[in-house]
């Protein structure tokens, strides 16, 4: 049971670690609105 829970947690962590940067990249390439700091 503990082993299964650990495996599930690891899998979930890996999925988040992979999907978050991909989602961020996707948003940066498609969003119509953005915020930027300029000359600072």
């Amino acid at each position, binding site marked *: 049971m503990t082993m299964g829970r650990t495996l599930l947690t690891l899998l979930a962590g890996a999925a988040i670690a992979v999907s978050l940067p991909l989602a961020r990249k996707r948003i940066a390439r498609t969003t119509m609105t953005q915020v*930027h700091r*300029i*000359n600072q």
Partner: protein
Amino acid sequence: MTVEGSPDTKQTGRGRGRTAGEPGRQDWASWPHYDAAGSGFRGYWYPVTWSSHITGKPLPFTICGEKITLIRDGGTAYALHNRCPHRGVPLSEGDQQFPGTVSCPYHGWTFDLPTGKLSAVITDGPGCRLTGKVGVRTYPVEERLGMVWVYIPIADEEPHSIDSQLPEELVGNGFVMGGRVEPRGGNWRFACENGFDEGHAKYLHRTALWRLFKPMPTWNITRIVPKGRWIFRVQDEVHWEADYPGVGHWSNKRWWKMQPPKETFNIGNTGKADKINPTIEAQEFPGFASLSMPGVLRIAYPKFIHYEFYVPVDDDNHRYVGVMVNFTEGWKTLGFYAKYLGAVRWLFHGQFSGQDAWMVDVTDAPPEKLYRPDVSLTSWRNLSEEEYGKKLAAVGAPETPRSTRDKKA
């Protein structure tokens, strides 16, 4: 502000563009360059899209009627004419097979990004005789304000510095900005005229959520003041309510809205500010709204400035680039991030600006019957006419290239 040398300028003054029996102005013949600029004024830099949108995968855009493809290689963005000379396939459908190039998806014609020259034809082997002899047009590219800008030339002239075209206060000062880049329907001139239109905001935007707690004026007395390359709307009188003979009383004042100020003001449109951001104050803007070529609107509020860049696509479409700038640095920018992403992009650059998009899409002029506040429109047309005449003379180009009147004939 008439332009000499063109047959169209022989007829001058108030009678031009008018037909006996028809009310108002029937055409824009009084402004031949402006009339001919249905697909935009060439010889300027235009913001196309956010820098982060341009990657190693080519994307298609149309600016001033020119079909271009934008692609990034080694961190640098490149713009090429979006048509393979072989069979006319858009290069934006292709991809990168070699560093520094883009290849047509059809037969592998491969073009050098900096020069546009054909550097290889994959399906004709290494000894292709066309290599180096044909190519596609390239366009100057710069990146400013987090966006990719492309210069659309009149002929083959060298572009002017992009910084000389940007609003002066955006060059050198530190700031944080939020913006929206959006394809919209309607001609770019309608969008530009709408932005500087003296009369529209008070009435069209009275229902905008952005103005839920602030009343809009009912009518103003406004004059247009030139300063440098800009024209400014200067408010001499601001009226918050009025009685219209025979129809009744009208005001945008409501019990839940703030009370309008008693003084006349020229920074911001709903009230006199107690404190103005020092960078904005230092600009000494004579008026709240200003406009410059090739269609750059600047609306100065006490704590931020809103800009709109109207990017011509073709006769029936434009790209709206709305930018809100706050001249703050350091940790204070976090507040702007929250405000912009949480509210401004939905309320101001969203619903409020969407009301403009609606009007621009359904405007159909000329013919037109202008009224007193439309001095803002005619002043802009006069400015563009004068500035573009000077620009054509500077590059030695013939007057009114690609006239829409010629096309109609």
